[in-house]
């Protein structure tokens, strides 16, 4: 299912981008996204390091610096329901924002780890490989390009395939995710109040950051929401997996449930509508 969702959002984005073309506006937005993709993990790392091990700090920072595609897609569907348009380039923004956080996180860990056991399991090569050959990134960019080149035709041809079923798929998928999230909740015993607070407060902080930036740059409401959601959301598949392989010392019992069982549902249920109203109120 997720495969299908990624594919259709990618195609959609590509087709819209083919319309709009790559304006300066587009480039600014993408620039901001990439910048934030590097900043967020850095500042969260230093907050986390006060209370957790360097390894957990880096792992969680990477998780929250990256994005959740499902949250993004839900926000996009939310906008469509309200007939608020958004630029196809936001899909590219999502793809661009997925990987940097992993690299930043691991770098920070290797700078601050006391045992000089750099290299071996977490050699940079393997990390980069993990970070870049990430299935979903490839998939999104791929379908984005298809949509971009195919333009109108692709859009029309795939319309039935992408539009009609889309909503139903998403609902089903969110239900599945909800159940999964529920199962992870008990794992949070270990996390403790600091990290549980973190997994709600940091998304809000990032959202506020995003809202302000978008407001200053005068980015459209639709694009703003999506950018904000990218900042506020945390990865619960790609990044945790990459971290598990490159930083085994970090405790998956923390970074997985924090992102999956708290931040993900928080953004879906409360975050998206609230962020949207604030953004609209500012414009």
């Amino acid at each position, binding site marked *: 299912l997720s495969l299908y969702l990624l594919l259709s959002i990618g195609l959609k984005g590509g087709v819209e981008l083919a319309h709009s073309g790559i304006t300066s506006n587009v480039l600014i937005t993408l620039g901001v996204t990439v910048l934030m993709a590097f900043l967020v993990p850095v500042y969260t790392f230093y907050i986390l390091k006060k209370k957790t091990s360097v390894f957990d700090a880096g792992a969680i920072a990477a998780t929250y610096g990256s994005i959740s595609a499902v949250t993004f897609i839900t926000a996009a569907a939310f906008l469509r329901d309200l007939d608020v348009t958004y630029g196809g380039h936001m899909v590219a923004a999502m793809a661009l924002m997925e990987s940097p956080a992993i690299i930043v996180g691991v770098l920070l860990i290797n700078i601050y780890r006391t045992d000089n056991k750099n290299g071996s399991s977490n050699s940079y090569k393997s990390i980069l490989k993990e970070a870049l050959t990430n299935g979903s990134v490839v998939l999104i960019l791929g379908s984005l390009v298809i949509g971009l080149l195919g333009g109108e035709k692709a859009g029309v041809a795939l319309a039935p395939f992408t539009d009609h079923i889309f909503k139903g798929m998403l609902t089903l998928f969110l239900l599945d995710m909800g159940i999964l999230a529920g199962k992870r909740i008990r794992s949070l015993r270990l996390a403790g109040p600091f990290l549980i607070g973190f997994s709600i407060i940091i998304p809000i902080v990032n959202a506020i950051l995003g809202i302000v930036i978008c407001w200053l740059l005068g980015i459209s409401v639709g694009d703003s929401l999506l950018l904000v959601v990218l900042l506020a959301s945390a990865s619960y598949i790609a990044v945790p997996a990459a971290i598990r392989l490159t930083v085994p010392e970090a405790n*998956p019992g923390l970074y997985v449930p924090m992102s999956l069982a708290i931040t993900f549902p928080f953004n879906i249920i409360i975050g998206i509508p609230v962020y949207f109203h604030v953004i609209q109120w500012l414009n």
Partner: protein
Amino acid sequence: MKNLKRVEIVTGTLEAPKVVAILEENKVSGYTMIKNVLGSGEKGFQDGEGLHNAFQNTYIIVACSTDEFDQLKEPLRKLLAKAGGVCLVSDAQWLLH
């Protein structure tokens, strides 16, 4: 009945293909593999809670001759030293057919 070594290896599911590669390089074509295995070790829990293979182990059983095992030994050791996991070896008899 024929005496042989029963080699069992547990390592991360993403590393398992490397184990199989070692077997094939050494012309050991017989093995059994169980995916979606959980566990705990130096790298902490592999509790399958992450939504990705990286949080699961794979369990591989190889019945092979002592000579074959001697060949596998070094490459396996190297791999596990890097990737983590365990390799247990015990004696067993093969019910020939």
